[in-house]
């Protein structure tokens, strides 16, 4: 099967003859004898059969449309307006590659420039690349970049950070042998400022997030930045961009680098991927030179008209090879374009409103959860809420699942000091009746 994708299959012999070959084997005459194999693979199928088969397989998944879910912890169910999906499925966007020929790629280039521009407004820094793989790899690359810029090897992170991101950071920093230092949280769940001060000493970079892993809005960003800068470290902020309509742009609070997850706009959960990492820096030549990733710039064409093009490529692997600022080549362009389209749709009012609705929904979830379990930290939550249960969370989870509710994400194995802790999350898509049903169920089981 698959011959419907191969126009020249019908002309194989004629074409071979035309160029002086007698058989297909001639084309593979440079392959050592015996290396060509028969493969033990299934036969091809018709499109209809594969459609039915994969529909059935994927239909086994129980989706967030079928089952109330309170999962968050880095992946959130946001609504993606239909026009965003339609637009990025237009094949001129979908099937193009990296815009190596700007003259026939102005559409993608301009869309990515717009992505960079809108993210710049959100984070308060003017230089944004056109995407990393995800928030975690963007943070890891920020750590590597901090080391290159400062020629130091220590990177400071909060202890209250996603285990996913910590794992990525460790793998990325293993090669250059960087040291990762964790700063614990204080009794309010915020970064412990005293401990941070100690840790910042000699650091290449200091990293904090807003909100933090427990969903709390980190309040002392500006002070943390000052501490980092005093220590000669870069101040790296990880921001959930959906909060930036209500929380100050990290760039305005002193951040040198901002990373985050662009896929929260315009992209569905997709079982965790694809995503798109935000990567933004201050307008500082030293920083720009060390920045990873592809950047789109505005320029002129031969007639003097505005045109867009990939720029500052001398940082990149295809030019600098082993000395590049990163190995990244394929990035997450289409994810970034989807985010841009969604952001253009939201505009300033939409972004504020989105932030407000999530704040309110999270507050309601938190209030109701506190009726049935321990909610250890006060402060304002955004999306995630940390809850502690008396009985093993696995039991709570099973009982919720039996009631067709997907509860929160257990984090006890990564944070044993929290006991049976789990993160429950709300977004703008969460419905009040789900929360009420959750609380009813928890009253019975927790």
């Amino acid at each position, binding site marked *: 099967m698959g011959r419907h994708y191969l126009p020249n299959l019908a002309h194989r012999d004629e074409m071979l003859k035309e*160029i002086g070959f007698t058989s297909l084997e001639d084309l593979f005459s440079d392959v050592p004898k015996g290396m060509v194999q028969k493969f033990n693979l299934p036969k091809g199928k018709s499109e209809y059969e594969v459609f039915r088969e994969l529909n059935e397989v994927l239909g086994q998944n129980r989706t967030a449309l079928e089952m109330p879910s309170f999962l968050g912890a880095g992946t959130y169910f946001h609504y993606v307006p239909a026009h965003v999906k339609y637009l990025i499925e237009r094949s001129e966007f979908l099937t193009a590659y990296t815009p190596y020929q700007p003259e026939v790629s102005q559409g993608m280039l301009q869309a990515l420039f717009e992505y960079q521009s809108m993210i710049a407004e959100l984070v308060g820094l003017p230089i944004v690349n056109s995407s990393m793989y995800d928030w975690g790899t963007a943070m890891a690359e920020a750590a590597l970049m901090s080391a290159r810029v400062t020629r130091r090897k220590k990177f400071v992170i909060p202890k209250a950070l996603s285990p996913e991101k910590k*794992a990525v950071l460790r793998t990325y920093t293993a090669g250059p042998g960087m040291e990762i230092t964790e700063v614990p949280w204080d009794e309010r769940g915020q970064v412990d400022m005293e401990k941070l001060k100690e840790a910042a000493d000699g650091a290449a970079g200091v990293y904090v997030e807003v909100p933090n892993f427990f969903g709390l809005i980190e309040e002392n960003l500006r002070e943390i930045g000052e501490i980092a800068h005093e220590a000669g470290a870069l101040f790296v902020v990880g921001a959930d961009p959906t909060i930036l309509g209500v929380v100050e742009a990290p760039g305005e609070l002193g951040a040198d680098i901002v990373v985050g997850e662009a896929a929260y706009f315009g992209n569905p959960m997709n079982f965790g*991927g694809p995503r798109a990492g935000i990567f933004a820096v201050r307008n500082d030549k030293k920083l720009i030179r060390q920045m990873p990733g592809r950047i789109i710039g505005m320029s002129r064409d031969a007639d003097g008209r505005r045109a867009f093009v990939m720029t500052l490529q001398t940082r990149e692997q295809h030019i600098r090879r082993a000395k590049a600022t990163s190995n990244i080549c394929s990035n997450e362009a289409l994810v970034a374009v989807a985010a841009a389209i969604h952001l253009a749709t939201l505009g300033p009012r939409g972004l504020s409103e989105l932030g407000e609705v999530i704040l309110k929904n999270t507050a309601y979830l938190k209030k109701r959860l506190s009726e049935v379990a321990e909610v250890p930290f006060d402060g304002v939550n955004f999306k995630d809420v940390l809850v502690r249960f008396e009985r093993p969370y696995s039991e709570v989870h099973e009982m919720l699942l039996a009631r067709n509710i997907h509860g929160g994400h257990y984090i006890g194995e990564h944070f044993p000091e929290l006991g049976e802790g789990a993160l429950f999350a709300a977004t703008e898509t969460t419905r009040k009746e789900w929360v009420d049903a959750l609380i009813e169920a928890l009253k019975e089981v927790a």
Partner: protein
Amino acid sequence: WSEPLIFELSRPGRVGYTMPAPMEDVAIEIPDKIKRKSPLNLPELSEPEVVKHYTRLSEMNYGVDSGIYPLGSCTMKYNPKINEEIAGHPGVAYIHPYQDERTVQGALRVMWELEQWLKEITGMDRFTLQPAAGANGEFTGVSIIRAYHLDNGEPQRDEMLVADSAHGTNPASAAMAGFKVIEIPSTEEGTMDLEALENAVGERTAGLMLTNPNTLGIFEDEILEIAKIVHKAGGLLYYDGANLNAVLGKIRPGDMGFDVVHLNLHKTFSTPHGGGGPGSGPVGVKDFLKDYLPVPLVGYDGENDRYYLDYDVPKSIGKVKELYGNFAVMVRALTYLKIMGREGLREVSEIAVLNANYLTQKLKGTRGYELPHKELRKHEVVFSTEPMKKETGVKALDVAKRLLDFGMHAPTIYFPLIVHEALMIEPTETVSREELDAYVEALKRISEEAYSNPELVKGAPHSTAVRRVDDVLAAKKPVLSWRMYLGLREKGEIDY
């Protein structure tokens, strides 16, 4: 034609969104010190305006459905629409990665099945699907090599060998993983210089990164010898899967002696490139390396017919990306594999190789284009326009730009670095003979133009949405966002 920036289309008061009401309408006070006070200068548009804007931008972009797109080393094959339809199933979009395994059996099965296909196709024993792209896969692979040597008590193995024709990601990935990069030259035949390799290997050799066929489109026919040399020196052999389309369904990297392989689902397995991403770069390893793979792997418990995430990987290098990889891309690749099947995959490589050689033979001998190295190619061919440049001043770049005027996409140019004025052409198996003929015709016509009217070619393109873009200016005077643009305009530093 040109389309304003979306910021320029903004009008105060317009909205393009709808928002569900909050569950309870109580004001939540964010601490003042962290509350947003700076203005949020996002564009304000209605939905119809947003749709028109991005529809127009899409029409200013060339994709695989627009015509031939023979970017060398990029495998710009047709992306079947059924892939998109399957990837649009709600069971893809609306599942959370932390859902209870019992509620995502379909997703885990997709990943597990995909792994089985990839294992058989490559001759590897275990795969991680986590890497987001080829380079992310390379980093994964070399990190595994690094972990393996450390684990074996050989921390001194800090040199990674790469061919001088290698993709830039190879040395970059090796460097990121902490290796020193040693370049191995190519012979005049266009294959690896075995003597140079012999001289380069030693106690510090961690491994050799290689593509086969290489970026010249030439099959490294001494691959078994190469493998022997590297292995004997204690190094491992890494396969860059960018060129797998040339041997798909016919030859397994595992049978060539490779220990680690990365694949590009967005190249070989027909998932769309998305204007630069998302891709997916699974990494496969031979059995002795499987304990170093990133976590989690996907396991299958046949007894209970249950798929599961397996975090029990004793010496895992950790994670190279959050979560499990670009799942929506995997779904597309599996769709393609199931449709193609055993024979279909073999025919893919056969026709891809046929198309590349057809083009090679048809273009060969045209004035101004030189065909260095061996004639027999696999999926791609690299011509040099060095003679044309010497004789007319027309460079590979000019030829590329002139192709755009004919409504065709240019090949990759100036790569691999070992060929001067390189035109690296990879037609793929999904273009028709007429498209190949038309491409050859266009290149021949450009040759004629170069020798009769070189300024026409040097001034190309003439009929595209914009004319040749000044990338020197772009780098000299970086304008990287609307915010920067406004600032520079205000200062009078730019006028475009």
